[in-house]
């Protein structure tokens, strides 16, 4: 069953076309990742699907009564606003204490009800955002680079959590990432975006597609090789030196944070 579908969607900011002829669907229970470099329109695509950004051409259709849980890239709460984790979970719909406690336990944040939102670390805040999204019993979770600012173990843990959520609730997941590690490990399908859809398919198919390699260049091939080194010994590919790969990977991360 298709939960959300975009058909030939174009988005323009002024005269600039940010997204061109995007067609995609997300079906029940699948994990789809949108992958692309900075400025490729990933966030805009997610925001268009959510109805935040108006669509210039094309159509977005949602399954009737579709419940979406949205986890933004980062939530910057103004320090002038006092708000506890418990209170935050009751926005926009009030939830019972039991439901709130359950959702916090689900994301590994049990007992943090009384904490101030502004006192949480980045990883904790993402978990609370996920808990809030889960409280709406969503059929589709939309996550915009939910692990930005987390260290690698934190990132891996967060995506394991996403997979668990999918397994337990059956919710489909549409998320944005720029991290191939994550895509390889946790997605059924990857959509490679750079203003338009360059290629799509299973993570393995996309990682071998020339469009993908052209888009991400050598740095990511380093990361890809590292990934294979770590997780996929049977398919060990081209010759590479361990330190060499680390350098590439670090370089890429600096680029992403710039």
């Amino acid at each position, binding site marked *: 069953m298709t939960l959300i579908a975009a058909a030939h969607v174009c988005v323009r900011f002024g005269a600039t076309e940010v997204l061109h002829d995007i067609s995609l669907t997300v079906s029940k229970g699948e994990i789809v990742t949108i992958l692309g470099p900075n400025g490729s329109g990933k966030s805009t695509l997610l925001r268009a699907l959510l109805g*935040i950004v108006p669509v210039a051409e094309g159509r977005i259709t949602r399954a009737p009564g579709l419940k979406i849980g949205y986890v933004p890239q980062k939530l910057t709460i103004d320090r002038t606003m*006092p708000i506890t984790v418990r209170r935050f979970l009751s*926005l926009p719909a009030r939830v019972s204490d039991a439901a709130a406690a359950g959702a916090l336990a689900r994301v590994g944040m049990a007992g943090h009800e009384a904490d101030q939102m502004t006192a949480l670390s980045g990883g904790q805040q993402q978990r609370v955002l996920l808990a809030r999204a889960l409280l709406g019993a969503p059929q589709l979770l939309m996550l915009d680079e939910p692990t930005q600012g987390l260290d690698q173990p934190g990132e891996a843990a967060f995506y394991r959590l996403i997979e668990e959520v999918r397994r337990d609730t059956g919710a489909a997941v549409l998320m944005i990432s720029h991290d191939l590690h994550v895509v390889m490990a946790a997605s059924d399908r990857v959509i490679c975006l750079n203003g338009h859809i360059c290629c799509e398919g299973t993570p393995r198919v996309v990682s071998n597609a020339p469009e993908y390699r052209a888009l991400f260049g050598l740095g990511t091939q380093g990361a890809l090789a590292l990934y294979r080194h770590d997780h996929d010994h049977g398919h060990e590919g081209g010759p590479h030196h361990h330190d060499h790969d680390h350098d590439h990977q670090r370089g890429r991360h600096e680029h992403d944070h710039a």
Partner: protein
Amino acid sequence: MLDDFLLRAGLAAIGLSLATGPLGSFVVWRRMAYFGDATAHAAILGVALALATDLPIGLGTLTVALAMAVTVAGLSARGWAMDTTLGVLAHSALAFGLVAVSFFPAVRTNLSSYLFGDILAVSRGELALVWLGSFAVLALLVWRWQALLTATLSEDLAHAAGIRPDRERLVLVLALALVVAVALKIVGALLIAAMLIIPAATARGLARTPEAMAALAAAAGAASGLGGLGLSLWQDTPTGPSIIVVAAGLFALVSLRRPG
């Protein structure tokens, strides 16, 4: 029993605080301080309009404050350089207002009552209007509370939940114009923004939830109102500014009590 002017003044201050506490909290959270200033300053222009057209002062202020607030909200939605734009609007509204009212000799003589309020002269009818207006603002905010809070935290989260942030912003704009119309008589055009911001800032240091902050801001506003009346009687100082002096004193106390 409402014959005593002091009693009426006290009740007016308490009534106004019911609205300024919660609304002021939103002004602080959304960094709308200058926005409040622009709207409040426009009230003087409203006074001139009311005098020129023989309308009640309250209606004139409400109309002009609403027009100003809608203009500012519209400009901010279009992404103008808000700091500068608001500065231009706030100060020109005040200047135009002052020039306009100078054509009415009656106002010229007691201009300061519009600038700094005249709470001791609040009549029964005006007291009723203050409470009515405050209740209207409070009811509006309570009704939209969950959506307003969500939109204030994050417009994207609000959108994703089917809330329209622009509509919620309009609710605040409307509430602000109402408060300006109601507060003009009590603290005056120059100090309305202070009445919104200072009690809310005071409450911030003591609250752990938005609701607590709004309630404490209302309490701090009411305490400032009564304290300011007392100060004004005791030292024969102008009442409007005295209210703000007490509010500022409370803020300083709370800030000193809680480092950071």
